[in-house]
């Protein structure tokens, strides 16, 4: 389809969608209004389940089954990226070279690293009390590890980052969530029902299974993001194409119509 035809299709389709959306928006509840039937009920339920953070209560208690699906999407996507970015038969691995890092960058990155790990763990552990949770804290914790790459070089990151271990942790997080759901069945309740004692409101040991599920998600996301980023970093730094062209082979030569691959 030529660009001209494509733009016409887009214009007609876009105009249609815009009209439908504008029509729908005029019938929506007023912005900022007080009518939030689901929200009101969700907050009441969160308070009943002793969860200070109502969003965490919705995610890990009232909609825990949906979050299991969301977690499965994350798991599947990490798996898919590992498969798509695996080392092809005609590629080989090179050892990354030591990199020069200026002293202030190294100093501050190493200084911030433990703080970031701690922040990640805090955000995971307090998911049922304050904004945050397994998904957010997991990403923070995974980012912390990559400060090693900024502070020292890729070899330092590789030494700490055992991919076998993180892949296993990723699977263990996913399995932990399922097991927490099955534990509820053993206790005689529904799958993923909040069966643990609810504890004292607004303390670490409250909200029943919410912190447990948060921890499982936190482990999975932290490990999953590390594995995910490892695939991209390996592509950029470690994996070389077979014919000896570097990664930064000029785009012009590679974009030649039939001159792509040997």
């Amino acid at each position, binding site marked *: 389809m030529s660009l001209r035809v494509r733009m016409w299709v887009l214009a007609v389709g876009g105009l249609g969608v815009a009209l439908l959306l504008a029509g729908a928006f005029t019938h929506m509840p007023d912005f900022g209004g007080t009518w939030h039937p689901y929200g009101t009920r969700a907050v009441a339920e969160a308070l009943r389940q002793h969860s200070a953070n109502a969003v965490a209560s919705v995610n890990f208690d009232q909609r825990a089954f949906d979050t299991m699906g969301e977690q499965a999407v994350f798991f599947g996507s990490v798996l898919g990226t590992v498969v798509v970015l695996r080392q092809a038969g005609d590629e080989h691995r090179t050892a990354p070279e030591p990199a020069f890092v200026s002293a202030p960058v190294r100093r501050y990155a190493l200084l911030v690293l433990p703080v970031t790990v701690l922040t990640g763990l805090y955000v995971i552990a307090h998911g049922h009390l*304050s904004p945050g949770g397994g998904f957010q804290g997991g990403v923070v914790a995974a980012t912390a590890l990559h400060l090693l790459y900024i502070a020292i070089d890729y070899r330092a990151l590789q030494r700490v980052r055992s991919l076998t271990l993180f892949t296993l942790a990723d699977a263990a997080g996913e399995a932990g969530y399922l097991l927490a759901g099955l534990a509820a069945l053993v206790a005689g309740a529904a799958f993923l029902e909040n069966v643990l004692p609810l504890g004292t409101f607004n303390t670490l040991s409250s909200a029943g299974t919410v912190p447990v599920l948060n921890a499982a998600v936190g482990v999975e996301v932290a490990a999953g993001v590390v594995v995910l980023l490892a695939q991209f970093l390996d592509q950029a730094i470690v994996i070389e194409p077979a014919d000896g062209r570097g990664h930064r082979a000029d785009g012009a030569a590679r974009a030649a119509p039939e001159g792509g691959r040997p």
Partner: protein
Amino acid sequence: MSVLPYLVAGWLFLVGCYGLTTSRNLIHAVGSLAVCQSATYVLLLSIGYRRGGTAPVHSDIAPGSRPLVDPVVQALTLTDVVVGATVTALLLALVVQVSKRHGTVDPDELRELRG
């Protein structure tokens, strides 16, 4: 103008679609898709907004003391962000492979099937 936030969401979605259609670079296309997805964040959060409302978190406010914004749509937005991020990662991985196998990331040049 109580419809304005909804219109912003619709505008974001259409701008993302425009970017996807006119894209000459697959990485740019993935970015445009992320813009489309962010329209849903804006839409969800504007549906849940409540004038004078605060975050639905009771760690520092007494329950019932202040109006709260809707936690349900915030939870949905979290799901949306997570799924959006993972989809972006998977698509970028595919772009890396397309670039390696075809030597280009211009969707218009990717006409024939290969390898």
